[in-house]
């Protein structure tokens, strides 16, 4: 009888201990949530670890004392207790690992990690060692290129790609899924021996005078104007003699872009050493900035070189910089394969650079975006009054075609009295657009909130009835895909890549303002049209993953090596 009760007691205590362990786990997961919310990243990591340690210790202590107190010392119970504490410790370890991972994501991405839906492919594909040249990675990115590179590399690494990602200068970035290399050192002997000076169009012209040592990673090409001013003197000094000085004075280009071109070539020169000392099967370079580096690596290693185009100079500027065009051309011509992020980009590569069609593969970008689930109705008062909201977001520049949207909206407003147009963003055309709205007499129905932080922008998205991307030229158009992911019908220009991925969208030529007005009116007027567009595009949006992009890239790597 006595024995029984004591056994029961022990059982009870073990159960108690278990619940405590569970509580610890809960507490830890709460901490994790807290960490995410407050984004107290580094602190949280160590804090969580401390907490985990503390809690584990406490639990073990309690368990031990409980066990001691008990006079019937069954070995089985001891074992169970030690197992339970082991599990607790393991769990704590796992959790701390996840906390670190999450904090990494918070620091570097501000986006959810790529989902690997397709991981069953992984074991079947051979390992691919990739030397990848990029220009920037988050969080030190100035645009979408860095994010796209990061997401693609992440997805590739899950499909058995062993990536060494080269950046032009050293930065504190943590990428658990790939190695990083920094283009810091230039091996002049190697460069000379390789004969790169003679062959590189631009290097060749300056030959042996190319004084490399003087240029040591001077600045980031996407510096803000303020930062640029601060470091200008230092910078000019570096470029006051030798190769770059001559290059710039001859070309007479504006300082900013020529600085960038200087950096691009320094990067290329440093790529030689990396190519010599790294083990890889294939070279993959992103956009013109890293094409010269890719060419150098190919020259040194004789390995196949893939040039991926996210945007052409012709997409970035209405008046393309001839020096950049030249670099772009050389990169595309010397590449063994060109990857375009859309058929739209592919066609433009063929049109502007006469690259043969069979040399270009299309690999659509993915979208790591997952729409927030708790959609609340914002701008309630406006909506209550039956006002619908047409939204456009992006830089307000010539390329984005906002002026066409404003003209079209003015036409649509004649037929539909119940909508407003909200144009989010800033850019060099903003004032012109505001004036345009005024002269069309629709100032009271067009709003320009300027650049918005993601939280405010999200509110607007959640209130929007229609999203319009009227770009004059848009290599991909992720912003439209993200609007579709939020369940907003989209109208996009035919001069964009995203329409190839989201067929269930409305498409217009950017200049066809009548048709744009026609479609805006139709979407706002027919609820069934909105519903159908949303329902039908949902599957396409969820299919738009980096995992698909990575699968295609892996195939390209394999085919290149087989050839």
């Amino acid at each position, binding site marked *: 009888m006595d024995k029984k009760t004591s056994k029961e007691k022990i059982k009870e205590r073990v159960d108690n201990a278990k619940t405590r362990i569970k509580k610890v786990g809960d507490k830890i997961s709460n901490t994790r949530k807290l960490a995410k919310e407050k984004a107290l990243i580094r602190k949280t990591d160590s804090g969580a670890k401390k907490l985990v340690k503390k809690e584990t210790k406490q639990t073990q202590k309690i368990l031990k004392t409980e066990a001691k107190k008990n006079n019937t010392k069954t070995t089985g119970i001891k074992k169970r207790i030690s197992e339970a504490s082991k599990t607790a410790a393991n769990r704590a370890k796992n959790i701390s690992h996840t906390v670190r991972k999450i904090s990494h994501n918070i620091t570097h991405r501000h986006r959810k990690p790529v989902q690997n839906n397709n991981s069953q492919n992984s074991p079947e594909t051979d390992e691919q060692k990739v030397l990848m040249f990029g220009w920037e990675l988050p969080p030190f990115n100035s645009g979408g290129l860095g994010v796209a590179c990061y997401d693609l590399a992440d997805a590739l690494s899950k499909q058995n790609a062993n990536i060494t990602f080269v950046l032009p200068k050293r930065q504190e970035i943590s990428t658990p899924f790939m190695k990083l290399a920094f283009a810091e050192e230039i091996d002049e002997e190697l460069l000379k021996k390789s004969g790169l000076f003679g062959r590189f169009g631009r290097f060749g012209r300056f030959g042996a005078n190319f004084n490399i040592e003087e240029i040591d990673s001077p600045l980031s090409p996407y510096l803000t104007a303020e930062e640029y001013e601060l470091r200008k003197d230092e910078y000019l000094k570096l470029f006051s003699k030798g190769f770059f000085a001559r290059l710039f004075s001859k070309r007479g280009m504006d300082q900013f872009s020529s600085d960038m071109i200087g950096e691009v070539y320094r990067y290329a020169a440093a790529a030689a050493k990396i190519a010599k000392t790294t083990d890889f099967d294939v070279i993959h370079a992103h956009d013109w900035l890293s094409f010269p580096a890719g060419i150098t690596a190919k020259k040194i290693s004789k390995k196949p070189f893939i040039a991926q185009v996210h945007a052409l100079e012709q997409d970035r500027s209405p008046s393309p910089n001839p020096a950049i065009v030249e670099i772009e051309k050389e990169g595309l011509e010397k590449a063994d394969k060109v990857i375009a992020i859309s058929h739209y980009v592919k066609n433009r590569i063929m049109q502007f650079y006469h690259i043969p069609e069979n040399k270009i593969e299309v690999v659509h970008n993915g979208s790591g975006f997952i729409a927030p689930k708790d959609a609340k109705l914002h701008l309630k008062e406006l909506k209550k009054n039956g006002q619908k909201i047409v939204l456009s977001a992006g830089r307000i520049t010539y390329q984005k075609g906002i002026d066409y949207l404003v003209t079209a909206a003015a036409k649509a407003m004649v037929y539909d009295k119940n909508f407003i147009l909200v144009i989010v963003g800033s850019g060099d055309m903003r004032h012109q657009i505001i004036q345009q709205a005024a002269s069309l007499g629709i100032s009271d129905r067009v709003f320009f909130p300027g650049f918005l932080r993601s939280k405010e922008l999200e509110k607007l998205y959640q209130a929007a009835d229609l999203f319009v991307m009227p770009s004059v030229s848009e290599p991909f158009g992720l912003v439209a895909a993200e609007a579709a992911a939020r369940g907003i019908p989209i109208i996009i220009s035919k001069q964009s890549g995203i329409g190839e991925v989201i*067929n*269930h969208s409305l498409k217009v030529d950017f200049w066809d303002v009548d048709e744009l007005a026609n479609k805006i009116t139709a979407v706002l007027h*027919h609820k069934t049209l909105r519903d159908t567009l949303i*329902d039908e595009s949902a*599957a396409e949006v969820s299919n738009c993953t980096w995992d698909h992009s990575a699968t295609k890239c892996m195939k390209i790597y394999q085919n290149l090596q087989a050839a």
Partner: protein
Amino acid sequence: MPKICFYFQVHQPYRVKRYPIFQVGNDHNYFNTDEDRLSNKKIFHKVANKCYLPTNALFLKLLQRHPEMKISYSLSGVFLEQAEEYYPEVIESFQKLVATGQVELLQETYFHSLSFLYSKKEFHHQVGMHAKKLDALFGYKPKVFRNTELIFSNDLAKEIEEMGYIGILAEGADHILDWRSPNFVYHPKGTKSIKLLLKNYRLSDDIAFRFSSKQWSDYPLTADKFAHWVNQVNGNGHLVNLFMDYETFGEHQWEDTGIFNFLEHLPQAILKHPDNGFLTPSEAIERHESTAELDFPHFVSWADTERDLSAWLSNHIQVDALAKIYSLEKKILETGDEKLIHDWRKLQTSDHFYYMCTKWFSDGDVHKYFNPYESPYEAFINFMNILADVKLRIKDHNKNIKTKVKVKPILLSS
């Protein structure tokens, strides 16, 4: 023993032109445009030259060569109307075929519409219009009915039986037939005497879809090979119902695929076997008793792999557009405006809603191929803009009547 029963659907819709919102209220001409993709005249000429005229000429030759050969057609009213307007020779060539006495014409709705699903009254009216048209052009009174795109159900069969037809055509859908064969005559559940002919979709599609497919293991299809398949039915069925779009000949299967050559040699290959022969639908119905009752509680059609209504009614925009057009029935008939009513009916043609189908749109399949609009959404937007104009015309008409009423007493007094 098996007899071939050929039936061809001959139809062309009045496609609506590009009609942006700005045209509402200003432009009541919905069906005429020079734009190649949407010009009904241009499309009719193209199809007539590639299909109707050469195929009719070939069939005329074959019917004369083989007096035992029989075929049947369903010529939609909107097809006949366009033929009269754009290409009268096409009418003449069909008249010659009917005059052989070896050709049966089937009844359908004049506008090849889905009216049975929305308004029995409108359905009856359109069947009546079709009967009148066939009488006027061919002096012909059909005995067998075929609804738009073989859309069929028990209820439709009952309705058609009451209207006095002896038979009706339907798809030999697997989910209805189950283990049974389409090669017998059946009768639909809940009817007294009307008989049912079911499409043998395997053999029909061998000609209509697979004929020129090089991936097909039986490619190339020869008349002898096909006749051999028909012979295999011997002892296992009374007839082989080959139902297909007439455009199979020369338009879906181009002349260079050898389709005309195949067709030319088919009758003699079939007739090589002494037990084989041809029947028209009404002959088949008069000659054979029903083997069993078949239950079609839901609508079945010959469209897509689903064999249901989803080609016309599977998304919000299709449901919306169809509901809106039929909701105008009462008001539009009250206007008594013949041109307006005829326009409204032309807008009921099933093709308009087929163009709005989003099934498999991403994959770019058959719907995309047959769609003259850039997307299902363009088709919808265009259609709804036109409908907005139709509504304005109804309003205008009513206004005019009111003003007329007001004007009358003044006229009387003066």
